[in-house]
């Protein structure tokens, strides 16, 4: 029972992070029908820049408490990833807007490799430790333990998700984004500058990605130039599981995937008689991806391709 509860908590933490990243995929897909495979690298760069900022501030004896230090550093990393997201769309996708779908998919993969390599040149090929600036208190809940960091991750994720949904549902920008997603041509003819909306979508997704990247790095105590690949692929799976293009679906898919993975890996050893350990947890994400693609390609909340005007 304790183990089960423990796995649920771990799953929620990881799942919330997946959800944040999955939103980046799904928002872009909703508007452009494009899988932005470079999004995982945005996540990685968000984490790397934040860690560099923390180290820089600590190195210059800036006397701030851990959480404040982290907040300041994330606030520096977010504009970097937003600019990067903007440039990626502007340079690699916009010129190919009218090209066959395969073309931007290939540039997406190419970009993702370029960004990984650039990151190894800046931060090296080794693991970069996450600075130990955060409190490591552990709380006990019904026999399961949860760190204050994990609590903070869950709360932060919930706040950001709520904020995003308010933005999408209640503001002029969100309305224009939904209109553009439903029919770019009509939105254009109703006076929406569709290119601005697309740029904003990439920038918002990148901001969420940067935060998610930091949370991943903080949760695992390290970052790595290639971390974006696996995290991005998992989040992509979450987006597909929820129904790609559907924001609520991305959140549901992320949390479900986090829990499935966590519970699966927790019991994998017992189930296989110790043959496979929890280090094989990644198989669950991709098992889910394969099953969804076979049995329900439109995802849990996806209504299949609404008629496009």
């Amino acid at each position, binding site marked *: 029972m304790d183990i089960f509860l423990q796995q649920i908590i771990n799953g929620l933490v990881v799942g919330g992070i997946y959800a944040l990243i999955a939103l980046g995929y799904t928002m872009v897909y909703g508007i452009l029908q494009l899988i932005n495979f470079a999004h995982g690298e945005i996540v990685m760069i968000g984490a790397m820049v934040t860690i560099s900022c923390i180290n820089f501030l600590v190195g210059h004896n800036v006397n701030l408490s851990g959480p404040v230090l982290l907040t300041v550093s994330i606030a520096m990393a977010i504009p970097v990833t937003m600019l990067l997201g903007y440039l990626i769309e502007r340079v690699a996708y916009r010129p190919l807007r009218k090209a066959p779908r395969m073309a931007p998919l290939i540039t997406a993969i190419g970009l993702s490799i370029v960004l990984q390599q650039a990151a190894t040149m800046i931060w090296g090929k080794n693991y970069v430790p996450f600075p130990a600036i955060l409190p490591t208190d552990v709380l006990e809940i019904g026999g399961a333990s949860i760190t204050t960091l994990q609590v903070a991750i869950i709360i932060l994720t919930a706040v950001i998700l709520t904020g995003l949904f308010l933005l999408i549902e209640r503001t*002029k920008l969100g309305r*224009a984004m939904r209109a553009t997603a*439903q029919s770019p041509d009509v939105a254009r003819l109703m*006076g929406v500058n569709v290119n601005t909306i697309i740029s904003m979508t990439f920038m918002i997704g990148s901001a969420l990605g940067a935060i998610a990247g930091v949370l991943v790095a903080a949760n695992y105590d390290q970052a790595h130039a290639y971390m974006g690949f696996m995290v991005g692929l998992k989040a992509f799976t979450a987006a597909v599981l929820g129904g790609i293009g559907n924001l609520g679906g991305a959140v549901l898919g992320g949390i479900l995937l986090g829990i499935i993975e966590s519970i699966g890996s927790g019991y994998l050893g017992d189930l296989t008689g110790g043959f496979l350990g929890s280090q094989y947890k990644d198989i669950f994400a991709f098992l889910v991806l394969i099953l969804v693609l076979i049995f329900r390609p439109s995802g849990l909340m996806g209504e299949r391709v*609404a008629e496009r005007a």
Partner: protein
Amino acid sequence: MTEALLEINGIHKRFGGLHALNDIALTINKGEIYGLIGPNGAGKTTLFNVLTGLYQPDEGKFTFNGRDLFRQKPYVVVESGIARTFQNIRLFANMSALENVMVGRHVRSKASVFGAILRPPSARKEEANIRIRAQELLDYVGIPQHAEELACNLSYGDQRRLEIARALATDPKLLALDEPAAGMNPKETEELKALMQKIRNDGVTILLIEHDVKLIMGLCDRIAVLDYGKKIAEGLPEAVKSNPRVIEAYLGVAPE
């Protein structure tokens, strides 16, 4: 006091070998209802798409309200004061009727995209005003009761009205309606006619594509006729109706 609102001259549009618009010239005056008719494939909708910036004309002149709109982006055209509806209804199907109209206000609202995120009081107030204005427009076209319904759940006639409300939300000087009466029954057509007259009386010039000859003749101040991408006639409804070239275009030439 006729004052030109829209003037186009020598407009050409080619799609590969097809010369969809061939040397089109039109002048629409402020305050009139201007009809555009012609057989299927004559180029009426192509001309609409050129006028609203969806297609870029190959050559020609296009000025609107003193502003050069030749090859301008659609949102600039909307901002200048041209709004349109579509022959095959194109609403944002999964948004409520009210939200559809609110999208039309986009171009008339000042809040920047960052304002939309940070939501200072001015942005909140503007958002509230957009909502009020959108509801007014639903009243205006006669479907206030459907504000919260999804656009795709509205009846066909109401969807047509909603499209008009959405176009009016952009505060147009020229409202371009592409076959608004298509698929309507006689009663709905009468109501539509009254709505168009009301819109004109409130100071909006109307450009109308329509197949319903009776509606066009009874409503328009002037009419242009397109055939095979060329303007073959223009003038008062009665004159156009008896023009031999128009009769020929619609009915073919009587054998000698």
